[in-house]
């Protein structure tokens, strides 16, 4: 038992130890030390946590809030982790989701001297040879980067997004620690193996690396610009590839006001309804036509130009969906939006999202009651976000696994809806969403090109199957797949993700791991639940605490 831990601890670099120790320290400072007392199954563990226990035992601050503070204090990797957890209401308690959506990503700026050094080391040139002028006071500072206004030598007004100094080293160390944790989970807690913690951490690593690569961000901006060439109502700043490196992104400077600044928009004499309609259309098109969407649709990333154009910023986190999933999602959403319960359930079955233990009749009747209630309401006035949340809650109650990309799509639409309501209170989101989605759905169903591609691809192997299976192949395949459902549900999802580079979806998947194994355990325990009554995943949470605590005690031992 301790062999596995030793191994993990040994695979950490010595310099990570300091970080592990500070993580433990942050946890303790926010009152999570008391948990240790209740979770220790052995005297050795109690010894490990003795030091932690000297801290104040209980805190008047709610546990969810303390967790958020822990995330904020632990920095970029964990802030991103928290943001990811916030997208997993099917795995994280709702109260924590709400709290995590308030994660502060505004941090004190770093000194201009660092800005200059980073620019010069990335460009291999003195800063003055690239920019005629750089504003020393940043426009904004977040966990990953800060943004400075500047002017190119050629006179164009630009902004420069510069990555925080030593960000990569810090993230790399955190990710190594997480990888160590994942290894520990797989070897110590067999229940976690179906979730493939190591693969998930690898995926999170990839997605975080993508987000910290501004060359990739510039490419996403370019792709998005091209997608919406035919939309005069949208502006995506042009990037300057010749002045863009991994840690420095130079882009066209755009003028605008925050989309949520209703007063300013009114003062500018703009048609608020038109802005909201365009915003919603763009959101839907990016998802359902292009399968490439802005996965961080924070109101802070939307601006409005003088002429009423929507300005979209921050392409660090993009979601991608493969065409097959678009079909499934469309069918699901059309079914939901038109109140067709049987179709909703069929969609969930087809997508293998319903566990074998699910009571289908109960699920149907719960869904029916929600859909019925909403279909009675005045369609225009339906609050889509609340509605989707209710549908989601039913799914969660009935153990329907919600795919990460569907949740992200839901979040995108809900954010746009929220923005819409804020600046144009009479906004009727369903009036905009329903006809659009239904039309796309019909067009895809009747798209001969698309179907023929699929048919052509499967003609050869499809016919081989046909020769010894002259009956309903689809049904058999579904059964076959469902035979292994319990074990492969999530890993299958992960595999398809790996093939289709859904950076953010992966990140959201990872949320599953930590949400379930770590924070779930912490919250349950903190609320006085006993270890014995909770399932194996809580023990995984224990491991994480043991893990930190043990390493910490080892270090203390070393120090003496």
């Amino acid at each position, binding site marked *: 038992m301790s062999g596995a831990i030793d191994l993990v601890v040994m695979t950490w670099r010595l310099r990570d130890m300091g970080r592990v120790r500070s993580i433990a320290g942050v946890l303790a400072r926010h009152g999570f030390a008391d948990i240790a007392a209740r979770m220790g199954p052995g005297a050795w563990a109690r010894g490990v946590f003795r030091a932690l226990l000297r801290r104040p035992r209980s805190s008047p601050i709610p546990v969810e809030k303390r967790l958020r503070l822990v995330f904020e204090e632990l920095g970029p990797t964990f802030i991103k982790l928290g943001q990811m957890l916030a997208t997993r209401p099917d795995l994280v308690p709702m109260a924590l989701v709400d709290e995590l959506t308030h994660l502060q990503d505004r941090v004190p700026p770093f000194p201009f001297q660092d800005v200059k050094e980073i620019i010069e080391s990335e460009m291999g040139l003195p800063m003055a040879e690239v920019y005629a002028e750089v504003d020393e006071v940043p426009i904004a500072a977040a966990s990953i980067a800060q943004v400075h206004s500047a002017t190119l030598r050629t006179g164009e007004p630009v902004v420069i997004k510069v990555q925080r100094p030593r960000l990569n080293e810090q993230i790399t160390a955190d990710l190594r620690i997480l990888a160590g944790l994942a290894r520990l989970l797989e070897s110590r807690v067999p229940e976690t193996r179906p979730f493939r913690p190591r693969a998930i951490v690898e995926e999170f690593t990839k997605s975080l690396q993508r987000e910290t690569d501004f060359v990739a961000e510039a490419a996403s901006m370019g792709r998005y610009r091209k997608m919406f060439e035919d939309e005069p109502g949208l502006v995506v700043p042009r990037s300057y590839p010749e002045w863009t490196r991994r840690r420095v992104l130079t882009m066209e400077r755009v003028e605008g006001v925050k989309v949520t600044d209703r007063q300013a928009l009114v003062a500018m004499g703009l048609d608020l309804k038109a802005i909201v309609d365009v915003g919603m259309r763009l959101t839907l098109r990016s998802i359902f036509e292009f399968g490439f969407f802005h996965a961080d649709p924070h109101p802070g990333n939307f601006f409005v130009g003088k002429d009423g154009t929507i300005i979209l910023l921050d392409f660090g986190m993009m979601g991608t969906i493969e065409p097959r999933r678009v079909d499934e999602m469309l069918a699901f959403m059309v079914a939901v939006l038109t109140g067709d319960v049987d179709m909703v359930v069929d969609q969930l079955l087809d997508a293998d999202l319903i566990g074998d233990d699910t009571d289908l009749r109960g699920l149907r009747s719960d869904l029916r009651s929600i859909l019925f209630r909403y279909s009675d309401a005045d369609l225009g006035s339906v609050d889509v976000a609340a509605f989707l949340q209710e549908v989601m809650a039913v799914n969660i109650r009935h153990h329907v696994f919600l795919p990460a990309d569907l949740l992200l799509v839901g979040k995108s639409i809900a954010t746009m809806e929220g923005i819409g309501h804020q600046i144009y209170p009479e906004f009727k989101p369903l009036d905009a969403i*329903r006809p659009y989605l239904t039309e796309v759905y019909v067009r895809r169903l009747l798209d*001969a090109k698309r179907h023929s591609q699929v048919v*052509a691809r499967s003609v*050869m192997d499809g016919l*081989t199957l046909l*020769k010894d299976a002259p009956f309903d192949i689809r049904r058999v395949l579904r059964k076959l797949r469902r035979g292994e459902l319990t074990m492969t549900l999530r890993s299958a999802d992960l595999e398809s993700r790996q093939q289709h580079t859904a950076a953010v979806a992966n990140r959201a998947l990872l949320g599953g791991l930590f949400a379930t194994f770590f924070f779930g355990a912490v919250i349950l325990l903190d609320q006085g639940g006993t270890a014995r009554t909770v399932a194996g995943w809580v023990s995984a949470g224990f491991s994480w605490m043991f893990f930190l605590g043990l390493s910490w005690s080892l270090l203390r031992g070393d120090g003496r």
Partner: protein
Amino acid sequence: MPVPPLQRGIESIVAELLRVHVLEAVLARPEVRRGLSPEAVERIRRDILDRLKASEEQGRDHRGEVEEVLDAALGAAGPAGAMIKSLLKAGWDHLSPSDREAG
């Protein structure tokens, strides 16, 4: 990327099936009726019809290639293959009105 002839043939066949057997059924679905206004349905019907007809015509000359592939694959399947093929053929003749229309 050029579209392979086999796929064009398939597209032509698929388009015809969609046009003759699926289009109206989809547009008549309750969820579609509830989601779209009658004018929108009409506009979409016309647009899709145009597309399907174009796909049908463009690939008509390549339908033979689909049959060849079928022959080869089903031939390899022995007696079962022969049976399936005759079923497919009967099914196709039943579904496709193109002879009557074209003739």
